[in-house]
């Protein structure tokens, strides 16, 4: 900011004290390079390498497929998309760095990406500082309420409502919870506490049984691999059902060790995270068969859009048994949501696109009908409850159309109060 300098002496003192030049002329031009060109740069930040790439690789596949599909159909507003991807290498420090690069150097029209909540929160300030349109396309703990951010992943209430109702009906009222020890696990636990004790809703559900907790919730660091003591504590507590918010490669061992202790048929498991990192493919069917999860997308879903997506992805990956997964499908959906916003707005600029998306865009995706909620910038899904089958896949048990991200919607209204850049947590 080239402010008026009070006087020369003052300036010199400031400069001397600050150890350098503290004011810098705003000579650098800021002009989107896509104003005139035939292509539009768009950015994606996903972990192609490192520990998080079990989620990153499917998301990258979904991203590349969606952008190629849009370009094949003639691009957007007559321009081809130029996809710029940086590998964030599962290192959180890379997110703000590459976000700045995408914004300042590449001047992209939109950024998609971020996987862990930690990575998202690390560069959301950059997004806000530069008022950059950003899509977060993955399951998370809910509550992000930010004018510049759109979320196409599911949130706790979308998963936990159906799961809680199912578990209360089928298994019983006593639950034990294990969760990954970072903000996803902690915030998920807070929502789960509310949903479980209310019988499957944010407010007490009329006529439903009320859940209760046995034992103390256990937060497990992401690098723990030996769950012996945890499994013994679960046995001590004797729950009717076990809720798992475990995340990542190391935590996969939990399910195996749980089965090895002979508990698989004694204590059923429900989870909002299982399967998301392809756990059901890594593990043996007999170790986790019957585990119940709830997602908006399973490869097993049968509809025209999904059949087309599956065929196309298998061809692209050169693997006839390629598994798209929730992460892949949500990235795919995220790009299409953005494309629909751009088409409706007739512009790549942030404000018109935001307005268009806030008009309530709705379409038939491979997941089924999805709709962008204008006030919260979150997605309303058809949710599917499914159990792991004996062939390393899922059997869809039940579908629930039009499930809103209630916990975020009740707190966040970006139409009424647009100057919000925060993340709400349960009280």
């Amino acid at each position, binding site marked *: 900011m080239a402010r008026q300098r009070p006087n020369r002496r003052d300036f010199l003192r400031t400069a001397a004290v600050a150890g350098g030049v503290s004011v810098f002329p705003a000579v650098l031009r800021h002009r989107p390079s896509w104003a005139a060109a035939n292509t539009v740069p768009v950015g994606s930040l996903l972990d192609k390498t490192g520990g998080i790439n079990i989620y990153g690789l499917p998301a990258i596949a979904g991203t590349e497929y969606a952008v190629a599909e849009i370009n094949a159909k003639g691009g957007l507003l007559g321009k081809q998309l130029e996809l710029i991807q940086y590998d964030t290498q599962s290192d959180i420090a890379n997110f703000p760095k590459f976000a700045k690069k995408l914004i300042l150097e590449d001047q992209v029209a939109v950024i998609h990406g971020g996987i862990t909540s930690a990575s998202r929160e690390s560069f959301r300030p950059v997004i806000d500082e530069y008022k950059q349109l950003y899509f977060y396309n993955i399951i998370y703990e809910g509550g992000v309420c930010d004018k510049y951010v759109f979320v196409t992943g599911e949130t706790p209430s979308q998963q936990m409502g159906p799961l809680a109702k199912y578990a209360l009906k089928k298994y019983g009222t006593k639950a034990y919870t294990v969760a990954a*020890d970072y903000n996803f696990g902690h915030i998920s636990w807070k929502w789960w506490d509310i949903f479980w004790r209310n019988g499957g809703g944010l407010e007490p559900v009329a006529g439903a049984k009320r859940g209760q907790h046995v034992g103390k919730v256990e937060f497990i660091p992401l690098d723990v691999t030996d769950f012996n003591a945890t499994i013994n504590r679960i046995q001590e507590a004797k729950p009717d059902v076990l809720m798992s918010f475990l995340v990542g490669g190391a935590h996969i061992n939990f399910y195996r060790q749980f089965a090895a202790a002979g508990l698989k048929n004694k204590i059923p498991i429900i989870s909002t995270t299982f399967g998301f990192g392809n756990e059901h493919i890594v593990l043996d069917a007999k170790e986790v068969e019957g585990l119940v999860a709830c997602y908006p997308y399973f490869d097993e879903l049968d509809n025209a859009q999904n059949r087309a997506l599956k065929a196309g992805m298998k061809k692209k990956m050169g693997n006839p048994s390629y598994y798209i997964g929730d992460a892949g499908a949500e990235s795919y959906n995220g790009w299409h949501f953005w494309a629909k916003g751009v088409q409706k707005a007739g512009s790549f600029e942030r404000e018109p696109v935001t307005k268009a998306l806030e008009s309530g865009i709705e379409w038939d995706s491979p997941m089924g009908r999805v709709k962008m909620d204008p006030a919260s910038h979150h997605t309303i899904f058809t949710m599917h409850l499914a159990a792991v089958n004996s062939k390393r896949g899922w059997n869809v048990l039940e579908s629930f159309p039009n499930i809103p991200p209630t916990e975020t919607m009740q707190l966040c209204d970006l139409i009424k109060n647009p100057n919000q850049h925060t993340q709400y947590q349960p009280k």
Partner: protein
Amino acid sequence: MRRVSSAELLSALVLLLPLLAVPWAFKPYTANVLAVYMIYGLLAMSLGLIWGGAGIMSFGQTAFFGIGAYAYGAIGLNLINRTQQTHTALLGGLAAAALLAAIVGYFMFYGRISDVYASIITMALTLVLFAFAVSTGGDEWVIGVARLGGFNGMFGQGESSQNIANFQIPPVTLWLPGMTEPFAFKINRESAAGYYLVLGVSVAVYVLTRALVRSRLGRVAVAIRENEPRVASLGYDTRFYKFALFTIAGAIAGLAGMLFAAWGRFVNPDRFGLAFAASTVVYVQLGGRASLLGGFVGAAIIGHLTSYLAEVVPFATIPPDAGPWITFLMEAGRRIVREAPLLVQGAVLVGVVLVLKDGVTPPLFRVLARHRRWGWWLLLPAVLVYFGHRVACQQADLCVF
């Protein structure tokens, strides 16, 4: 007192002039990245100081870096809204890092733990801190309004604001008497103040450390590296010298950590992790531990290389009609490039130990010193012309090429 030689003046000019011009010559991203390289360079220099200086190989220099960053963050978050400055946080971060280094140093050197044992203890230290920091995700881990935040890193809690920026670690904010507005750490389109702060601190710390190495403390430290019993028999309490140098190095690492926290406005447990510890050692090893500049050179080379690899990772897909051998080779090549940062670091560690014991900086400097006439007449003008043109092109659209 030694006079500054012509070769030293030349290298200072060749290094400093471009660095000073960077915010004017490139888009702000370049200044952002260079600032991180300099911050990592400071950290690496602190390792070089005790490793090259006194022969103490500290795997856990990152512990002091992280502690500095966390302490700065915790104090800054608590005080910024009350006092509008971060002076206390800066002092607190420096004190925390120095104190931790002093405790560990006292424990090791007065306990006569040295050589590989010292390396393993410092490694254990940084891993303890990593395990600790990762496990503080719960709501109960809070210092005033600063949540430690576990795996996510530190953030503030409070009801007062709707803006995430107010929950973040504050940038370095200095408000000294006589200033009409505070100095704020920023590197963006409007201001490069943060960049110049990092550059200024790096140069200042480098100069001070260089003086330190040439002082009695530095001379005795080198003597200890060569032959500790001999130095003790000359009447020096070698434990104290190692302790003092270790503490100073810890404080420098803490300073780098604070700058890092202010740069990214966040700090997370990865700063204590083994991978970061490894890269710090790689920086020093590659740059050369005999030279204080080595850490900076190593950090810049590796930083640029990994960044480059992350950017050029071939995201291209293999054509479905390619033959099996082509597919195999392409897939193999793609996977190797994908893992390249790790492979490069590993190769540097093995290669430098086996082949290039002094790292790259001393040979580079020797070449420059030997051919300093060419340097004065060719290198310096070339640098001036290139950066002059960049500045003219960026600032006034006077691009010739």
